[in-house]
């Protein structure tokens, strides 16, 4: 036990005698009990039973679930839809994360200086964050409507024919990505804004005296100093890329031909439309494995002290 480990003075421990200590233990455990009970019940235990259920069959009618070994996993490997949604999800992450981070940095740089209308501009960037994703999807659906939506109206003015961005396999995922970026960039902006305000202005000042231009200052000073923020934001963005599928329900329903379906959406369809819960559990195991891999990667790639103390 390190003295002063979490800000406690050494004397605090010396004073404690044995019965006090055990009472402290009981108090500590009692304080944690209610929260931990719920967290375990709805996060840790289901994570474990998911794995167990992926080795079972789906109970149907009077037939209870039975142990089927790796059957579900064999099916998974031979399931083209699974591979499709997995690849989609990777493209979705690759499409949303870098662009929304780049845009959020630009937004933060834009509104970090004083100019007339700054608070209006900041509000415009941030507003999508407070809207429900389902409402966002409704708004964008109208945008994308073939022939009638704003995109087609603008394209039509340039003599372009009708487009069906959501209905075509080549563009459906891209259209979903655009909506996600619109929703997320403003949220990430505020973290960069906080980071920018924490950078001492003398640094840029000094660089400017040395003759550095705006771009050099950004590349050599601002961006490196914001690395902890970028790490924090990327972790959030990756988790969101697997967790948020609400807009797919409204915009495409995963179609056409699963072109815009993501892993969690496929889990939903499998488990709650076709009620194949064992296969749903198997797909969830893949999701858990992906998040686990991501956590391990992050652990080895970055100093984990960067984002939380």
């Amino acid at each position: 036990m390190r003295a002063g480990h979490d800000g406690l003075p050494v004397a605090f421990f010396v004073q404690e005698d044995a019965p006090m200590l055990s009472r402290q233990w009981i108090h500590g455990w009692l304080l944690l009990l209610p929260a931990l009970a719920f967290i375990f019940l709805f996060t840790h235990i289901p994570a474990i039973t998911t794995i167990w259920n992926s080795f079972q069959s789906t109970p149907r009618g009077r037939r209870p679930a039975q142990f089927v070994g790796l059957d579900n996993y064999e099916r998974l490997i031979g399931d083209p839809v699974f591979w499709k949604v997995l690849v989609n999800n990777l493209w979705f992450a690759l499409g949303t994360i870098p662009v929304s981070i780049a845009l959020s940095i630009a937004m933060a740089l834009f509104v970090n200086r004083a100019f007339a209308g700054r608070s209006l501009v900041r509000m415009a960037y941030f507003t999508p964050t407070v809207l429900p994703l389902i409402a966002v999807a409704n708004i964008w659906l109208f945008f994308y409507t073939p022939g009638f939506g704003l995109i087609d109206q603008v394209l039509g003015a340039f003599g372009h024919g009708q487009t069906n961005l959501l209905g075509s396999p080549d563009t459906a995922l891209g259209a979903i990505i655009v909506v996600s970026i619109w929703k997320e960039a403003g949220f990430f902006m505020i973290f960069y804004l906080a980071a920018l305000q924490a950078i001492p202005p003398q640094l840029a000042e000094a660089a400017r005296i040395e003759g550095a231009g705006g771009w050099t200052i950004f590349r050599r000073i601002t961006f490196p100093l914001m690395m902890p923020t970028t790490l924090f934001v990327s972790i959030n963005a990756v988790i969101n890329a697997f967790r948020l599928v609400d807009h797919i329900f409204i915009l495409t329903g995963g179609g056409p031909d699963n072109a815009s379906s993501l892993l969690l959406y496929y889990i939903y369809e499998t488990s709650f439309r076709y009620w194949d819960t064992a296969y749903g559990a198997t797909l969830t195991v893949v999701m858990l494995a992906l998040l686990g891999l991501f956590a391990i990667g992050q652990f080895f790639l970055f100093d984990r002290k960067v984002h939380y103390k």
Partner: protein
Amino acid sequence: MTGFDRILMTTGAVVLALIWVLPLAYAVWTAFHPSEYEARFVLGAPLTLENFVKAWNAAPFARYFLNTFILVTGIVVCQFVLCTLAAYGFARYRFPGRDILFSLVLLQLLVMPDILIVENYRTIGALGLVDTIAAIALPYVASGFGVFLIRQTFMTVPRELDEAARIEGAGPLTILWRVYVPLAKPIYLAYGLVSVSHHWNNFLWPLIVTNSVETRPVTVGLSIFSTTDSGVEWSVINAATLMTSGPLLIAFLLFQRQFVQSFMRAGIK
């Protein structure tokens, strides 16, 4: 920064803001104008609230709002109580297993109940709670994020304060309530705002566990309203969309600074 750079930055900021506000502005336009102006942007187009009235009457939105209100209030109250107790335990008590338990709590930041829909539905079914508002709330009433956030704040409270309270004979819960909670007020505001907007907006889990008007929150109600193929006009759907996000949107516009600071504070800790 040169004058040219400054103009460039401001232009960029404004152009991006216009692009960003366009989808929402379009929704506002259609919602407040008669349907024949859905895609005709005429300056003198007549304003109307007709679309909102139609939407309100076409689906039980009043009930959906009530459900969401009960849901969000319940979640936030439970989160405050449960997370405060646990945060206090983690911040100020020493006992075996503390660090392991804390890592397990933090694990919830990565593996959220949102992705464990299959097993959580099974649990809710076993508890006999399918299609209740409690079922929507239960997976979220204790949040690892909340425990972490409040613990970080509690750790900054000087020890001397609770020593003083202890000498005056206050018990642990009194100290928590009288010393720690008042000092952490800003973080409760921050966490509360983040949590309210998160659960107001949540969709997938409520969609799964509810199947009646009496339990559905507005997000699920809106999706049913806008996807049923009943030939509802766009202007009415957009009115419904704005209506469901309305309370949050208005709160945001009024308390913009607090919102932004809260999200920032909640994220940076």
